[in-house]
């Protein structure tokens, strides 16, 4: 046992001496591994970043909220079955809340009607167009995931009486009142002055498509009056009591909605219940595919590095055939020789891997300083897997030449010129 330990120590010592002895060659060989490890780790970081951003975005949607809408969040072939669905009315939400209140042990907490459209908001000379404008009730506060930067949401009284008040997303507030405070200022929506009673904290965007900071919330009654909406075109958001009982809640909600919509048994649901998981399910395979393709392509870079290592180990074995013969004559076993060359290949790979990892770390830190919004994180998992990848690369690429070396006939090896 001790003997193996001495052999290992000796192998490491020889490997390091060998690397020191042919610096240029080792450096060039390691370069292949360095590039490979940089490529793979950068890709790993990027994939992780995308994942983090994706999950952050989904978290803004709320993982405990069901969206009752006309359309499902996945593609449908029979669009005509959905297009003619009856719209939702604020009274539907009220009816739903009554059912929830009368159901013992309901999995549902509250139903909130939300109407939405795009509009232009002004303040003085400042103007923001394409603002997501939502009309809702005071219950919206119970399912909001964002905090308030300043101020508050409208109260039930304000909402019911359709007071001219509004809550701004942080981007809108910033654009309309650059450098100043938006609270208690007045903005104009379709000619109607609205008093700002709150500004929401920054939330970021959903998959970079839709910004949650570019929105304005007003009481639903104000909204309906303002946009002259008689009927529907709204959705009902339902908050769950416990997100762990999602399936039960969905079933309960389906039943309740059928009652609200007065559907007869056997009739197809004329509404869709959506949940953020639908996005996950839809985008998950896409995400995984991208991650797989990315890692595969960057893995090729590492593979090229591995070929470099294999090549250099073959050369090293050839050059040192006499040395191998001598070592065998002095009592080195096959295992000893095999190990010596494996350690050499692994050492170059680990050195290359460490350098590559450091460069990745520097690059990520620099990128983070340049763009603080990017969710870039170098994780310990990544560091560990990069080092494991280096060692595995060394073992895999060094194995064949090392095996060849260990099987050399000492007589032939000693005579080798």
């Amino acid at each position, binding site marked *: 046992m*001790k*003997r193996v330990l*001495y*052999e290992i120590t*000796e192998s490491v010592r020889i490997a390091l*001496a*060998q690397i020191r*002895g042919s610096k240029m060659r080792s450096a060039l060989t390691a370069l292949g591994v360095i590039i490979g490890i940089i490529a793979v780790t950068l890709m790993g970081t990027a994939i992780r970043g995308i994942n983090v951003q994706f999950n952050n975005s989904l978290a803004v949607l709320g993982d405990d909220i069901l969206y009752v809408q006309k359309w499902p969040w996945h593609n449908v072939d029979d669009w005509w079955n959905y297009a003619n669905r009856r719209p939702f009315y604020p009274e539907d939400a009220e009816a739903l809340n009554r059912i929830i209140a009368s159901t013992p042990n309901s999995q549902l907490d509250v139903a909130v009607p939300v109407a939405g459209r795009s509009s232009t908001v002004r303040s003085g000379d400042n103007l923001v167009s394409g603002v997501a404008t939502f009309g809702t009730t005071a219950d919206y506060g119970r399912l909001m995931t964002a905090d308030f930067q300043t101020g508050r949401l409208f109260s039930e009284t304000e909402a019911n009486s359709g007071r001219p008040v509004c809550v701004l997303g942080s981007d809108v507030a910033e654009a309309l009142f650059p450098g100043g405070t938006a609270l208690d200022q007045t903005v104009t929506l379709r000619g109607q002055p609205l008093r700002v009673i709150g500004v929401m904290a920054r939330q970021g965007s959903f998959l970079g498509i839709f910004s949650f900071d570019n929105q304005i919330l007003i009481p639903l009654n104000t909204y309906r009056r303002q946009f002259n909406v008689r009927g529907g075109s709204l959705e009902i958001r339902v908050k769950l009591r416990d997100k762990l009982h999602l399936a039960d809640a969905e079933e309960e909600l389906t039943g309740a909605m059928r009652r609200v919509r007065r559907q007869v048994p056997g009739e197809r649901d004329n509404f869709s219940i959506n949940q953020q998981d639908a996005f996950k399910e839809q985008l998950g395979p896409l995400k995984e595919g991208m991650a797989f393709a990315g890692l595969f392509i960057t893995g090729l870079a590492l593979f090229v590095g591995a070929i470099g290592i294999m090549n250099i180990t073959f050369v090293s074995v050839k050059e040192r055939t*006499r*040395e191998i*013969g*001598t*070592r*065998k*004559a*002095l*009592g*080195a*076993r*096959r*295992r*000893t020789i095999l190990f010596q060359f494996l350690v050499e290949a692994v050492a170059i790979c680990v050195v290359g891997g460490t350098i590559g990892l450091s460069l990745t770390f520097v690059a990520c830190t620099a990128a983070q300083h340049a763009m603080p919004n990017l969710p870039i994180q170098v994780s310990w998992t990544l560091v560990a897997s990069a080092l494991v990848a280096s060692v595995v690369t060394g073992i895999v690429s060094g194995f064949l030449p090392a095996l060849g070396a260990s099987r050399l*006939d*000492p*007589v032939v090896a*000693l005579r080798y010129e």
Partner: protein
Amino acid sequence: MIPPLAPAAAREVRPVGPLVIAIGEVTKLYRMGSETIHALRGVSISIHRNEYLAIMGPSGSGKSTLMNMLGCLDTPTDGHYQFNGRDVAGMADDELAEIRNREIGFVFQTFNLLPRSDALRNVELPLIYAGVPPAERRERARMALESVGLGNRIHHRPNELSGGQRQRVAIARALVNRPSIILADEPTGNLDSRTGVEIMALFEQLYELGNTLIVVTHEEDVARHARRVVRLRDGLIESDGPSD
């Protein structure tokens, strides 16, 4: 500092010890393409502890093959070979490595030192393979180097040493594991004649200290130092007797 070689008649022939090597009717065949080469055609030798033996013969006589066989670098095609009573003929690679490590000290014509390691490291090498702990290893290597007169050169690398000094390092390496035999292949072949004489004087000392020496050479001058000379021709022993 090296005593001059005494005339042959005055040299002491030490009493031999127990049997170390027993080779009986050993043959070795090589295939070279379609041709079969009979390197050894039935050779028998017995070598006892504390013998000083020279193996001679022209090239192609089977001298190198016999040396590889004696050194357990190669196994015979047929015949038997016992080393200290252990049957070597049928051993696997790693078992042979073990025998070489513990029982045989090699001295090569081209020294075969590791260029990047200093003298001490080179001499330590067989002890590493034998599993000797580091401190003991260094001490034994240092003593071996002192015994060949290189106590002040232990941290020199081979390229910082003269040819004679390199061969002394190699001899120290051969001695360090206290082997049963020292097997030298043309030990003076790469040295000038004066240095060659020094090396042969060192061998004489080793012999007098009780070591068993086998020197493979084609030089009569070298063979004359041995107490017994085995001459090979065409894969057979031509003569085996005391040196003149």
